[in-house]
């Protein structure tokens, strides 16, 4: 199955399960979790269901396009079901059928794998889902986000799209995966991986990255100062800080001791943003609650 067919089928499937089909967030992020459609929507009592693809950047994982399995930027397909339904595992297994995988003739196992994002003040409990030994999905029950205990609990399903496509096509290199219409993943993205790697590891201006980190930190908190705070801009500032931190890290510019402090600074803004969002939604009367104002 072509990569684009994997995307289309999964979005189609989850759309039919009542998910809004959203678009990727238009900023550099490390994971689909950072998209406000996840990070903010899981907060508070309002139910929500959403699915989207999110290009996710992990500069330190970049390998100059030389490693057949590692990318500095990969595609996640993220699903949020809030509250987590009783049949969430069954829904997930059904989604595999949309990929042409019949669980009845495969081995599907849910192995413990918990998730934690210190920069977002978030953690969850869950599994990696193994299909015939291949990790195809990360499955998480969010317990906390932005330092806030969540209630209700959201289920997050994150499909690693390149891996799934590789597995379905039985390719040994990501770059050989067929994206669609006879064009390979390598033809679309290889040069980009090379350049992003070179930039992240050798070229990026450390001083500029540090300066921007400070700038966005100030800017983020400034957005939260008004009585009617600007939540989305504040979150965007936190996301930029997070990406700048990842860039500095790939550049080898962050010592072990400094790391904890820097992560703490991003988390502080993320936590403040989460609180501001909750207040804003509460003041609006939780519009998406049944019987709410939406």
């Amino acid at each position: 199955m072509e990569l684009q067919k994997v995307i289309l089928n999964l979005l189609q499937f989850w759309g039919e399960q009542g998910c809004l089909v959203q678009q990727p967030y238009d900023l550099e992020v490390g994971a689909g979790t950072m998209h406000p459609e996840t990070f903010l929507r899981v907060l508070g009592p309002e139910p929500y269901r959403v699915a989207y693809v999110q290009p996710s950047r992990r500069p330190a994982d970049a390998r100059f396009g030389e490693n057949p399995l590692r990318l500095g930027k990969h595609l996640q397909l993220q699903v949020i079901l809030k509250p987590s339904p009783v049949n969430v595992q069954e829904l997930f297994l059904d989604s595999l059928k949309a990929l042409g995988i019949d669980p009845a003739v495969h081995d599907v196992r849910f192995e413990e794998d918990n998730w934690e994002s210190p920069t977002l003040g978030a953690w969850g409990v869950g599994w990696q889902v193994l299909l015939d030994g291949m990790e195809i999905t990360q499955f998480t029950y969010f317990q906390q986000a932005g330092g806030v205990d969540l209630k209700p609990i959201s289920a997050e399903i994150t499909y690693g799209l390149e891996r799934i496509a590789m597995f379905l096509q039985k390719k040994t290199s990501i770059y050989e995966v067929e994206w669609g219409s006879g064009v390979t993943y390598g033809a679309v993205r290889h040069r980009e991986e090379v350049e992003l790697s070179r930039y992240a590891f050798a070229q990026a201006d450390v001083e500029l990255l540090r300066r921007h980190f400070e700038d966005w930190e100030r800017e983020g908190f400034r957005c939260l100062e008004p009585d009617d705070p600007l939540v989305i801009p504040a979150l965007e500032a936190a996301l930029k800080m997070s990406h700048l931190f990842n860039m500095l890290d790939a550049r080898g510019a962050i010592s072990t001791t400094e790391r904890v402090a820097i992560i703490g600074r991003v988390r502080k803004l993320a936590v403040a943003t989460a609180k501001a969002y909750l207040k804003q939604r509460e003041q609006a009367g939780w519009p998406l609650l049944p019987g709410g104002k939406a």
Partner: protein
Amino acid sequence: MAAVARGKGMRGMFLLELLCEEIPANALPSAREQLASQVSQALAEVGVVPSLLQVFSTCRRLALWMEGLPPATPERVEEVLGPPAAVAFAPDGSVTRAGEGFARAQGVAVEQLRVVETPKGKVVAAQRRTAGEPLPQVLGRILPHLIASLHFPKTMRWGEGEFVFVRPLHRLVALWGEGALNQVVPISLFGIRAGSATLGHRVVHPGEVQLLGIGSLQDYLQRLRAAGVEVDPQQRRQVFEQRAAALASEVGCQVRPDAELVAQHVELVEQPGLVRGALDSAWLALPEVVVATTLRHHQKCLMLEQDGRLAPYFLAVCDRPDDPQGHVRQGNQWVAEARLADAHFFYFQDLKTPLRDLAAKLRHVAFHTQRGSFAEKAERTGALALLMAQSLGLGHLAEPLRMASQLAKADLVSHMVGEFPELQGVMGGLYAKEEGYPEEVWRAIAEQYLPLGQEGAIPQSLTGALLGVADRLDTLAALFSVGEIPSGSKDPYALRRHAFGVVRICGEFPLALPLPDLAAWACQPFGGAGVNELRLFLRERERFFLEWQGVPTPVAEAILAARWGQVAEDWALARALAELWQEPVFVQLATAFKRVRNMVSKEGEGQWAPEVLQEVAEHQLASAVLEAEQALRTHCAQKAWREAWQVLAGLAEPLDRFFVEVLVMCPEPALRQARLGLLARIQALFLQLADLSKLQAAN
């Protein structure tokens, strides 16, 4: 006192099954133990002991089976104390209103009130009888709370977020019956009400499985087996082992033993399945440990071997009995190939960078916030290893040790160890070998973390042993010097394990290095801070080591009360004493020595003056002591510990005779001092080996 209803002849049986989403493998063994012990304890408290109680589990369920249960708890008879007799009874013996009130409250007739003596005087008492409670009712009362308070390493909430448990609960079966399970015990847990049906295996038998009417444990196990679930972990282990052996022998191989991994496999599935995958033999060009660790780490694969060499096959676990279209084998094989390609990439990537360059990066890797980087640690470790080598007269190892300690932690910044932390040391050793460093160097790097667990093998090379001890001692000293000293269950840096490693290597390799000196050397870079605490800590680990090696506790106590720190010698001495200590002569000696110690500690050490002594018995003892001193010197020099103990045993007779015939605390001061001096000399002689008075209490 409650009577106990023993299970024999009782026909009551009970089944509990919790069907959850996949429970983490590491939570299950403890959950089974807790469930078994807490249920039997809770039942014992109400006087019920089942004839059989067994717990089972799969990755999706926890189950409890009990049989030989009584229909109800036994009647309880308790004596309840009431008001003072003088209040309950009028002087004429009639019952007062207070007495009547107490009788009424206890549900007994006034005639049944009795008067009993208590420390507070005479009070009125009543026997209160509580009727037995039907067992289903008892179970329904006990279980919900008991299950909800089982302890798990990590718990979670789900859905509306009201409940906390290890994973969401989907079904609850609670069935009771006499002769057969025919009654649902109406409990509910996390919003789920108990029923009589469970679900089968997710893929093999996705439907309901009715459990009503089950007449025996075998019946339950069979019904689940028919639904694709092997609920008995023991049985799963057996199936795994048989299948693994069969799959290996089909290709003329054996399974490389890995008990820890098989134990994990048992907890990961409902149905024990294994598939064999084949590897492109090109991968076997990678070091064996890289291949095996890659597949074990990511896919929990068992490896096959042929004549002790890794064979190009692996066994992957799966949660189904079969592989109808070959997808499971193909999938695992594909993943294995991809993982090995990845490892191959990292391995050859690492080989491009000399270890020396990797080691240079350690300047930026913090070992501890207050104790600097790994580069600084390497300097200290090197200096310490050098001191140790010199003290052992191994000056020729100075250069290899210096080199090894500088490179020892370089692999921490390699790609391979970044991916597979469990390969620390191993990769460094491989890379050093590839780069052509001398064997003393690469072996030291490869063996520095040995022993891995408590039981693991210790280093085989001298440089490995020295580096391993020096590295651990530096870690201990660095952390002790900033007050990071383990207490109780708090030992975040696993310092007990580090110290135990030091003691084991010194004792077993052996290295004749006194632990007190080692502690002092290791603490020196930190101005000696923490050295006393570190010595005590190492001494405690030596005690643990001796007992772990099977030395009886009193023997270990006796030795360590007199000496410690030369682990190999202390241990040999302890082994020799362990064979002798229960013989009558040592029992006699322990008592006599206790007297010696008491007297010397109370009356002082007197003065050694044999010419002042008068009695035959004391002259005999004095000359026996001098001979014993001579003999002991010889035996200790030859490390002939059994003979050394026999020398002390030879003093039992003269010592006993001395105590019978001689009055130590005689009136003449000079004589008294001489007698005390004799005893002090005996004490000093004994304490070269042990404080035998510690054996006394035990014998």
